[in-house]
């Protein structure tokens, strides 16, 4: 309990003073705190903007710098074969040819660099919109890194189940390191010089080599690289050294996977094809082509078990888009929901990432319903796709 020591007021007017002061104080306090909150929001938003532009790779001067170390000329994708954690032979060149691939030599007992490098990479690859990449980890400590231990260690990272873990004899690993043109790993003496000590460490290359679809490594990522560096660089690598195919849409196995066509399906005389959309957290526009070999029909509804509101958007180039209830699908023709002509706007229940599919049911007045798996692309891949398609269609009513 506190006791005010100020003198007692001598008049009613004076007595009202402290109360009025309190009210003024209160209002001023509210206004000031509100101001601070607004300032804070603005400052943090600006900081975030700075972060996003510095890593977006969209071309401002600061963003021109790579997060990794640029190598010129690039190093060839190495050709070596080791054994994966399932005991199968894994030819690095054959399995990853033409695909974005990140190669790292390390070991699971590594106290510092390896877990951080892999965790940072895993965080980045798990970020929506980042091109999918093969992540290959070669253990430099095959003695302690059994297949089970290696698999378990990789699995602990976000999305680590997709990481490839490779083992071999020390000679095979050294040969792989030489093929990749990185420092050959070596077992380090312990502090007490006991070579038989089970707590030995292994000296190894700290950088992650990034191989692009042109089968070269143009960048190496040393220890200390952050996930925002990866997030900024990976799409730029694909833009610069990709073959025009986003590896996010490439088949996970084999090196000859073609550019993925959008999902397709048919009902009656109607074929729905080339369905694709961009990765998004909440809202995405689906583009799709509808071929009708029969009589005139009408698209009367669209639904999805993975989405809430879905609206058909139609409009002419430059005239703006408008929501429509249905879309004519003329017989013997093609109706395309294409950039500048129309799209299907989908409010997602959950975020979708590049490589995912989104089931979409299209209901036609006469032909009935058909479900097509919409291919989810990274933003860059979708932009490329739209540009390559051009304005080749028109939407209905």
């Amino acid at each position, binding site marked *: 309990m*506190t006791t005010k020591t100020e003198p007692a007021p001598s008049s009613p007017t004076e007595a009202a003073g402290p109360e009025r002061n*309190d009210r003024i104080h*209160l209002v001023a*306090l*509210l206004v000031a705190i509100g101001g601070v909150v607004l300032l*804070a929001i603005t400052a*943090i938003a600006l900081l*975030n903007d700075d972060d996003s532009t510095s890593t977006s790779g969209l071309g401002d001067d600061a963003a021109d710098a790579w997060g990794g170390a640029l190598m010129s000329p690039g190093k060839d994708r190495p050709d070596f074969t080791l054994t994966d954690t399932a005991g199968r032979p894994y030819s690095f060149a054959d399995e990853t040819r033409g695909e974005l691939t990140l190669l790292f030599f390390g070991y699971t007992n590594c106290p510092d660099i390896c877990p951080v490098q892999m965790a940072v990479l895993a965080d980045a690859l798990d970020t929506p919109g980042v091109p999918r990449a093969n992540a290959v980890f070669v253990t430099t400590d095959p003695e302690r890194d059994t297949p089970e231990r290696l698999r378990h260690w990789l699995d602990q990272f976000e999305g680590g189940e997709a990481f490839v873990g490779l083992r071999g004899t020390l000679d095979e690993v050294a040969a792989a390191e030489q093929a990749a043109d990185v420092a050959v790993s070596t077992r380090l003496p312990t502090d007490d010089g006991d070579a038989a000590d089970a707590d030995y460490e292994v000296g190894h290359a700290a950088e992650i080599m990034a191989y692009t679809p042109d089968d070269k490594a143009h960048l190496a990522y040393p220890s200390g690289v952050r*996930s925002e560096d990866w*997030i900024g660089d990976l799409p730029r690598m694909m833009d610069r050294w990709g073959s025009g195919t986003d590896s996010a849409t490439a088949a996970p196995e084999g090196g000859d996977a073609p550019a993925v066509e959008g999902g397709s399906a048919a009902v009656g005389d109607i074929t729905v094809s080339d369905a694709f959309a961009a990765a998004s957290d909440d809202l995405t526009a689906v583009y799709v082509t509808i071929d009708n070999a029969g009589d005139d029909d009408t698209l009367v509804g669209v639904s999805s078990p993975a989405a809430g509101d879905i609206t058909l958007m139609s409009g002419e180039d430059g005239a703006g888009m408008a929501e429509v209830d249905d879309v004519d699908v003329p017989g013997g023709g093609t109706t395309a929901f294409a950039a500048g002509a129309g799209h299907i706007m989908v409010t997602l229940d959950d975020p979708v990432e590049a490589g995912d599919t989104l089931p979409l049911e299209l209901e036609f007045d006469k032909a009935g319903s058909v479900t097509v798996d919409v291919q989810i692309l990274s933003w860059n891949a979708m932009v490329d796709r739209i540009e390559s398609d051009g304005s080749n269609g028109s939407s209905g009513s």
Partner: protein
Amino acid sequence: MTWWCAASKEPWSWAFRAYPGIWLFMGVLLAGYLLAFRRAPAGSADADRRKRWAFVGGWLVLWLSTDWPLGTLGAGYLATAHMAQYVLYTMAAAPLLMVGIPEWMMRRTLSRLRAYRTVRLLAKPLIAGMVFNLVLLITHAPITVDNLRTNEAGSFLLDVVWLLSALLLWLPVCGPLDEVKPSYPVRGVYLFLAAGLVPMVPGGFLTFSDTPLYAVYELAPRIGGFDALDDQQAAGAIMKIGNLPLLWPVLAALFMRWGNEDKKPSVPTPSETANPPA
């Protein structure tokens, strides 16, 4: 020799690490407090006994949250530990220290430092709230944390600024100077806004960010497979709700005192005492 907790690239282990600078700081703080009682005014011993316990409690919390292991973890390994430290500083150590300072000690100290007018100005809720939250925002900005936590002097500075801003926050609420305390409802609203509401904004950014914001924690040696993003989100949650265990009881106490104050009979003025109503 490491004097103060700072980030290092050493893998984490539970092996004890000594920080003589922290011990020295804590020793000087406690010794200075206890020695001041030698010159306590006569008759203040009973009233000061409870304050002494409060101060020692606050001092202990301050020490535990600054020294190994929490201080070490917070300086260079886990954003969660960093945020736990901050909450302990601001929501436990600072109010206890403030409650533990007797009025005569505060007045004497401020007088010697010629800082009374400055402190009185800073302790206005409007200013104290703004200062506290500006410190919160600035000291949790990634650029600040990444640059200060990586060296001992910077880490020391960060801890001291946290402590001073938290003491300022609590001065108008439970400090020893009655003249800087507003009425109970204003105190309640002040505390709710300054310590409860505003921290939710940066806490939200930490929670909902897609990427780790702090390089120092993202690139720190991992502890038990705790992912950097999960760590940051947990830190954001601590910033948002870690203050609640203390904040709400204090707010409740303030409003109860306000209620009790209204129930008390008004004190008659001298003229009323001299001329009682018929």
